[in-house]
């Protein structure tokens, strides 16, 4: 019975972790008692509502196909939220008169400022040439304003808000040499080799932009000797710096010390890891093709309607209770084991959801219901085998052991096929479909574990009880 001991210990350890994840006091939890498990689980918009922010899409009137631009904006925002693990956030378009609006609803976020941070930059990304810089506010200095007009450039603040740069989109005044909203295929935060505490963001541009970028870096190329020498050559080099502008802020301004032909570059700006990650995420998700202007921010209540959610929750719990009773009536002691297994797996699943910060929505709950189904099903498969073996005259212990080894591949194949389907749904799906796939995969893996380890352990413990009942049945049949 060495195996049972191990199974028992593993079962207890895992459920302990799940319970800790579920019941660890949450800051600002709204629920008490049994419902307090929901303090740790992020609930979706449909169930608990969330932050709602409305943007107006600022489309250049000269754009030929405005609806394509809006679709692109939608995709970029969707990608950003998916990447931040907010697959359950809702992004929708809304139209009023001539204007297009994008409404973003983020589940669980009660702090709208935080939600806005999550949405990230609302401006466009472009590369430009630094012509001048100043530490005094250029908007009140007529000389600097004139300089901007003369150079056809604009004064932009840097990331820290301490310095202004005069930046022009056209590199070297060549009218078609500019790089606006390039497609970034890869962006990763990396440790800065020159500054151990800092991070840089390395990124790679899509091929079609790499050429333009190569031309730009060719124009702005400054040999390193000049930077070391100083003097007039250096003064001139100062006017050939490259600026990376996002959200109308200069994220980076620096010299180009080598021509870049492969579209790969780094943004260094003394970032900490968090900032570097965020910038990488924004770059990777694609820069916006149009600027977004915030119209309003606030909250939205459960989309399904609070009244509907509570009615359905009650119905769901009622249904599960009937199943619990059904199992006991039909399988006796083994039914009790099945019920415990079912509760065990549900708690495990909720624990994992809480620990990983996965957001639970109605489709997610559908995944849980399927999980409940597979857990009960696994138990039923095993019990029917136990009964078969008992009918053949095996002892209870032997029957349980044979039943498990015979059921192993049944459960394995049945569950793995479901998981494969789940993985594909996760890969291809967005939003709600992804959410469903997540709970499905976690739940089915959990039910495989519960059926093979937890149920096994409990069945062996309760095998005395099974014998009586099964013998009676077997006797009646013989």
């Amino acid at each position, binding site marked *: 019975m060495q195996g049972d001991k191990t199974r028992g210990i593993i079962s207890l350890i895992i459920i302990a972790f799940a319970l800790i994840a579920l019941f660890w006091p949450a800051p600002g939890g709204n629920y008490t008692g049994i419902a307090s498990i929901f303090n740790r689980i992020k609930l979706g918009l449909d169930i608990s509502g969330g932050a709602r922010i409305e943007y107006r899409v600022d489309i250049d009137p000269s754009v030929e196909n405005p609806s394509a631009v809006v679709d692109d904006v939608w995709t970029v925002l969707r990608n950003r939220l998916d990447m931040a693990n907010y697959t359950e956030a809702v992004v929708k378009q809304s139209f009023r008169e001539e204007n297009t609006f994008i409404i973003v609803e983020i589940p669980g976020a009660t702090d709208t400022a935080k939600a806005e941070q999550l949405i990230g930059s609302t401006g466009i990304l472009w590369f430009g040439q630094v012509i001048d810089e100043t530490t005094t506010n250029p908007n009140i200095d007529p000389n600097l304003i004139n300089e901007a007009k003369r150079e056809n450039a604009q004064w932009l603040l840097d990331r820290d808000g301490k310095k202004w740069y005069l930046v022009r989109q056209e590199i070297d005044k060549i009218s078609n040499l500019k790089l606006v909203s390039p497609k970034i295929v890869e962006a990763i935060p990396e440790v800065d080799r020159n500054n151990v505490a800092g991070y840089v963001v390395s990124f790679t541009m899509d091929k079609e932009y790499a050429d333009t970028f190569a031309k730009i870096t060719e124009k702005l190329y400054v040999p390193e000797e000049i930077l070391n020498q100083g003097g007039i050559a250096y003064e001139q080099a100062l006017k050939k710096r490259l600026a990376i502008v996002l959200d109308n802020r200069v994220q980076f301004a620096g010299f180009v010390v080598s021509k870049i032909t492969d579209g790969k570059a780094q943004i260094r700006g003394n970032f900490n890891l968090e900032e570097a990650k965020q910038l990488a995420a924004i770059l990777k998700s694609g820069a916006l093709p149009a600027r977004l202007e915030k119209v309003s921010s606030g909250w939205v209540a459960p989309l399904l309607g609070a009244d509907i959610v509570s009615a359905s929750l009650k119905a769901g719990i009622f*249904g599960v209770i009937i199943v619990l009773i059904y199992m006991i009536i039909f399988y006796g002691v083994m039914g009790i084991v099945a019920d415990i297994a079912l509760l065990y797996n549900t708690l495990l699943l909720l624990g994992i959801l809480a620990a990983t910060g996965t957001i639970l929505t109605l489709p997610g709950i*559908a*995944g849980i*219901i*399927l999980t409940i189904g597979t857990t009960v*099903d696994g138990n039923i498969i095993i019990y029917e085998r136990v009964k078969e073996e008992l009918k053949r005259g095996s002892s209870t212990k032997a029957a349980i052991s044979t039943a498990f080894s015979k059921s192993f591949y049944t459960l394995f194949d049945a569950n793995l*096929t*479901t998981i494969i389907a789940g993985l594909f749904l996760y890969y291809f799906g967005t939003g709600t*479909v992804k959410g469903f*796939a997540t709970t499905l995969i976690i739940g089915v893996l959990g039910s495989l574990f519960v059926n093979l380890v937890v149920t096994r352990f409990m069945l062996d413990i309760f095998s005395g009880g099974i014998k009586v009942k099964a013998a009676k049945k077997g006797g009646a049949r013989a």
Partner: protein
Amino acid sequence: MIDFVGKKNIFIIISIILIVASLISIFTRGFNLGVEFLGGSEIILRIEAKVDESFVREVLKDLAPEFENARISQIKSINDPENISKFSVVVSPKDENGNLKVYTGQEKGEISNEIVKKFEQKNIKAIVAGFNETSGYAAQEIKNLTWKAIVFTLIAILLYITIRFQFVFGLGAVLALIHDVIITLGFFSFANYELNVAAIAAILTLIGYSLNDTIVVYDRIRENLRRPKGKSISTLVNESINQVIRRTINTSLTTFIVVFVLLLFSGNSIKPFAFGMTIGVIVGTYSSLYIASPVVIKWIKR
């Protein structure tokens, strides 16, 4: 012992009729799509009283047919005063042909007046603060679930089952899966039941359920195939189905109980989920017993 195999032709015919009827209904009648897919008009209501969604739902219910399935959720903006409540009411108005229509400016005005009047009758002051056209957000999300995704998923399942069982089993499982999904969708179309995000969740759940159910039967066939020869394949398949029938019925019944209770008592927007699952469980159980295995008997190798 029940004869699942002998009368297989009858059941295959029944299934084909159901599939054809479903497809006809899907392509001619189409679906009663939910607000999440269709989009429509969003009315922002500002009510000068503290009321909840169910109250607003009750007041607006019989304003126009589309208001019965309206999505009503409370919204709040920063700086809103304490004693008002704001709601987003999304409706998908349809024309005579069942297509989504856009309210004309005049209609918008009439509806706004009607709404204000309805609330006035309850002695509550309401203002229509916004009347926008809105996109169906779910439509864009589902867009990625293209044929490519579906075909890849089916191929992956087919591959796995071919490796673990035999190719024909994979084929049977995929056929049963397509069978279940088409017929369930057919019921949605036929009953004109609202197809919303919850219904999609039900269809997805059904995929898992249908596969699971079929594999359990196949597993028993695989096991029995290893036994010494002597019985014909069709006897063997029939025996295998009979050996797992108790499990199939118990599992289906427990799932059925949960979703049926949900169908009876859950609220409006969740009902499509329960409806899809209830139909799906029945169809899925039927197909795993009568379709998935009997269909492929001819090609099973020992």
